[in-house]
């Protein structure tokens, strides 16, 4: 990559808040069944930060992300993005859904899928071509451009969804367990891709995962959620050097410590432990 990386040094530590989640509560009202998925979540994400969210299955991670994305109305509390209350999907946001396969348009080819949001953003044609090409190359799918999503494996479909988000050049990137369906090697590559894009574009990333190693490796901060009804169990600052790579970073003693700490927290969350309030 030829562009100068905007690393931590270039980014002020006390960054302005990009995203402010205040007292978020979400109760699903079904027929005769109400589920309190999220009870009370408050946290802040600075501009250009990469924050990981971990929590047990069913903790409401997807619910949280959908509220932030403006796809779901919260029951109480609010989400403030760049100083404005979120009431619908804001401009400059991309989401990689957990159900990646269902988020691709089956009647479009891979390239058309990646290109559509750019057309909507009125990106000029030549620029569009370049962005699509680069994004597909970045996820290793330039060969599959003309295939339809159903002709690809689950992991490849996931990468198309990621390429679409990347080509869009968002300010805010929300990813919901995006690497769940890819093999270990691809996963490592994609993790590095997310890190390098984050550095290059200065995008704010909120990354949901159930993989503790991944959360510590990627994030500058890891927010651990309790089990449902959900509150923040603890925010762990990942004080690892900003230049990370799969081998050295993962073998640092500090990495093991942080990993162990988050692991313990998640175990506590699973057993129903909640912070004393």
């Amino acid at each position, binding site marked *: 990559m030829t562009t100068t990386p905007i690393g931590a040094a270039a980014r002020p530590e006390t960054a302005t808040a990009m995203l402010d989640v205040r007292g978020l509560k979400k109760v699903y009202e079904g027929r005769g069944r109400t589920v309190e998925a999220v009870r009370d979540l408050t946290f802040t994400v600075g501009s250009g930060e990469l924050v990981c969210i971990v929590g047990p299955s069913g903790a409401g991670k997807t619910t949280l992300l*959908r509220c932030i*994305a403006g*796809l779901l109305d919260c029951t109480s509390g609010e989400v403030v993005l760049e100083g404005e209350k979120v009431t*619908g*999907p804001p*401009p400059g*946001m*991309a*989401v990689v*859904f957990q*159900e990646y396969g*269902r*988020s691709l*348009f*089956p*009647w*479009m080819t891979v390239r058309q899928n990646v290109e*559509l*949001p750019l*057309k*909507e953003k009125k990106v000029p044609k030549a620029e569009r071509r370049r962005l699509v090409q680069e994004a597909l190359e970045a996820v290793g799918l330039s060969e599959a451009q003309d295939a*339809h999503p*159903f*002709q690809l494996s689950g992991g490849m479909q996931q990468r198309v969804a990621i390429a679409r988000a990347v080509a*869009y050049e968002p300010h805010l990137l929300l990813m919901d367990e995006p690497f769940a369906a890819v093999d270990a090697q691809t996963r490592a590559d994609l993790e590095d891709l997310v890190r390098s894009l984050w550095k290059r574009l200065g995008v704010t990333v909120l990354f949901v995962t159930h993989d503790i190693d991944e959360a510590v490796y990627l994030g500058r901060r890891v927010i651990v959620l309790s089990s449902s009804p959900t509150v923040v169990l603890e925010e762990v600052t990942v004080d690892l050097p900003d230049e990370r790579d799969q081998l050295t970073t993962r073998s640092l003693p500090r990495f093991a410590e942080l990993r162990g700490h988050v692991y313990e927290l998640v175990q506590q969350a699973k057993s129903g432990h909640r912070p004393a309030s």
Partner: protein
Amino acid sequence: MDAGRKILLLLAVPVLLIAAWWAATAGSTNFFWPPLAQIAGTFGETWFTGRFTADVLPSLARLLVGYLAAVVLGVGLGTAIGSSRTLRGLLEPVLEFFRAIPSPVLVPILMLFAGIGNEMKVLVIVSGCVWPVLLNTVEGVRALDEVLRDTARCYRLRRRSRLIHLVLRGASPQIAAGARQALSIGIILMVISEMFAASNGVGFTIIQFQRSFAIPQMWTGIIMLGLIGIVLSLIFRVVEARLLSWYTGLRMSQREG
């Protein structure tokens, strides 16, 4: 399966039926069941000495206009109703009522309003064809994937692109199913409306033959209708295969996976 074998299987039953008809009526002296050989013999002179342009083409033109109008109307209304819960709640009972009315009974009523000209026949065809298209479109629009809708919202697709790239494309398999049903209904209504009151058309001609006891000619009319049906459904299939190739592929991959 190789192509030759496929064609052989495809044609086996029709050929058998024709052979049976041929054999059963071969020595027939029954006035109403003339030998198939005789019917086939009169086919050419009955239809290709002026009647094709005088009767078949006007019939087809009315069918085409009525059918296309019904598809446009059905898809338009169906999309609106499928996208809006309020509209659905308001209209569903009414739709059920209108759908339950067999369109041929509308012919005498429409004759009062629209006379016995082309307008009446086109209206009859529209009134019958619109329902399967409309109801299938509503279903198709409602069944759109939730995640796909969310995706379109996140990337802020504008109304127009959302309509084209998400709603219509997504509902297109169901729309096609409705349009296929509508096609056969359209052919039936084309004939019926011409039998009531007309001065040309295939249905009119068949009735004329029957009234003048030109029985072999009457039979050729029925064969003509069958042929029209086959040709139109073939055209339909070709168009459908082109537009919905993704859907065929998707379904095949799901079956294998």
